[in-house]
């Protein structure tokens, strides 16, 4: 059976520059490290990971913009490196924070122009553009030059551009990056309904927003340092932590020797985020069982810090990431 997307030991390295020890061999960065994924047709698949995890590299390879160093990437069974022309007939791509288009043209004209790259009939293209603009509440911006659009509206236009040509497989690279809550919600709704209404369509979405992956995706691959650490449905990933106890604790200051908390008996994983504006620190503990929380609170107390709040929570994708990587996803992105 042919998958909508399949990667076999997909690897990509980038040259960083010359090594410091005057070696002629350039230093290499491993952007993707033997990534194996299978994505079914009709699936909304998420790739979740911090900045620099390899998400965009994966999308660039699958959308024929980049060649893998080794391994194979297949889109609808077609090798992206060998037959990019055939792959391009089946795909489209939208990136977050994109500034594509021409300021001199209106939103509608820009979208029409991009539809022409897919050979769409003008009448069909304009009809579809109008429908999508209505769906995203952009009708009143149709005749506005894109140079006058806000970032959010511009991203909405980019999203519409991805859907206009009705591709078989759509790559969305951080589609809601930098958007406000309301616009992000509208964009997510559109993505969800498009896949639901078109059973044969596939979306590969990268994000570092856990809630987005949780809400949208049928399955999620958690990726870090170019490696796929886990791949399953969000509920199954969270279930894998069910036997553990997840605690969120807020303390009044930045703890000293904070990494020592990893060594407390019963602590499986530990992550923290210091908030300089309040001086407080959020701690997240994944414990082998509830009984170990006493040792944790004692350690905090011994550290001279005061617990402001303590709660036991249901595991989230963030907790899954912490359990796999030993650090929080949000902290990583903020850093």
């Amino acid at each position, binding site marked *: 059976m042919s998958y909508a997307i399949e990667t076999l030991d997909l690897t*990509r390295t980038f040259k960083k520059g010359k090594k410091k020890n005057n070696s002629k061999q350039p230093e290499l960065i491993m952007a993707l490290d033997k990534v194996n994924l299978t994505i079914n047709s009709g699936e909304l698949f998420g790739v979740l990971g911090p900045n620099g995890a390899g998400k965009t590299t994966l999308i660039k390879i699958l959308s024929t913009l*980049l060649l893998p160093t080794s391994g194979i990437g297949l889109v609808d069974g077609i090798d992206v490196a060998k037959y990019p022309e055939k792959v*391009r007939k089946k795909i489209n791509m939208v990136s977050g924070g994109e500034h594509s288009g*021409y300021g*001199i*043209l209106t939103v509608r004209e820009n979208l029409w122009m991009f539809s022409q*790259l897919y*050979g*769409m009939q003008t009448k069909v293209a304009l009809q579809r553009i109008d429908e999508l603009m209505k769906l995203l509440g952009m009708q009143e911006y149709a005749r506005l030059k894109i140079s006058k659009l806000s970032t959010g509206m511009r991203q909405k236009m980019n999203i519409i*551009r991805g859907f206009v040509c009705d591709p078989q497989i759509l790559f969305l690279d951080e589609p809601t990056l930098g958007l406000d809550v309301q616009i992000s919600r509208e964009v997510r709704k559109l993505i969800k309904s498009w896949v639901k209404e078109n059973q044969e369509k596939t979306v590969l979405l990268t994000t570092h927003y856990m809630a987005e992956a949780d809400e949208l995706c049928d399955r999620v691959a958690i990726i870090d340092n170019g490696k796929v650490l886990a791949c399953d449905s969000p509920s199954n990933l969270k279930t894998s932590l069910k036997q553990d106890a997840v605690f969120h604790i807020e303390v009044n200051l930045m703890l000293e020797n904070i990494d020592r908390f990893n060594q407390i008996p019963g602590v499986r994983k530990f992550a923290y985020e210091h908030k300089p504006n309040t001086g407080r620190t959020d701690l997240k503990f994944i414990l082998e069982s509830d009984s170990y929380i006493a040792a944790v609170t004692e350690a905090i107390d011994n550290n001279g810090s005061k617990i402001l709040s303590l709660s036991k929570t249901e595991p989230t994708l963030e907790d899954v990431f912490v359990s796999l990587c030993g650090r929080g996803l949000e902290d990583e992105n903020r850093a």
Partner: protein
Amino acid sequence: MKTELKTNLKAIFGRAYVRLVGAHREPSWLISEALLPLLSTAAFVYVYKALKAPEEYTGFVILGGAMTAYWINVLWSMAAQFYWEKEMGNLQLYLVAPISRMAILLGMATGGFYLASTRAVFVFIVGSLIFKVNFVVISLGKLALIFFLTQVALYGLGMMFSSLFMLFGREAWHTTNLFQEPIYLLSGFFFPVKSLGFTIGLLASFIPLTLGLDGMRQLAFKGGKESGLLNVNLEIIALVILSIFFLIAAHYALKYMENMGKKEGRLTLRWQ
């Protein structure tokens, strides 16, 4: 095959639309792109007049001044355009689309040709009227053919250059900058290229404008033949060869550079 052709034709029209509409929405370009270039052309006319050069030299200059528009257009609005498209984030959208890269360039060329022609026609007509240029056209058919072949070869050369911009970005921009003025000299925009000597003239003939201008001058002005570098028929053959060569070379150069860019990861790398 038929669908691919249709898609590429639509892509050409789509990309050309940006420039055609842009030209009408911001007509202020007419002043900088049409009126001002006439002034630099006029300066050369006055130099020849001051030196009491033969009458046909005024025509040579006006024709050169008009053709400059196409050279600038090819160099900056087509060859370098991939650099700007990359910076704007459009290049990756073009490269992901199921179309030939040459279709995009042809779209730019078509739109750019309209703008360049407006400038060229303005310089040509207004310059000819002001300086009372005397045309003695030997063969209108050959004149049109040479103009057409020059454009094909020139835009083919531009497409070849654009492959550099697809990969190298800013570095190639400087390279193109280096081309601008030397080609003004070598192509003989404002004087018969024969003045450079036969060998240099022949070497400069690799630039399509050199032969194009030389051929058109021979066919459009009295005394043009005497200052011509090669026989007009020979120049037509050479231009046909150059047209085919540059178009094929552009096709392979674009393919090669795109592949190299995909290997090195520089195809969509901005702010190089």
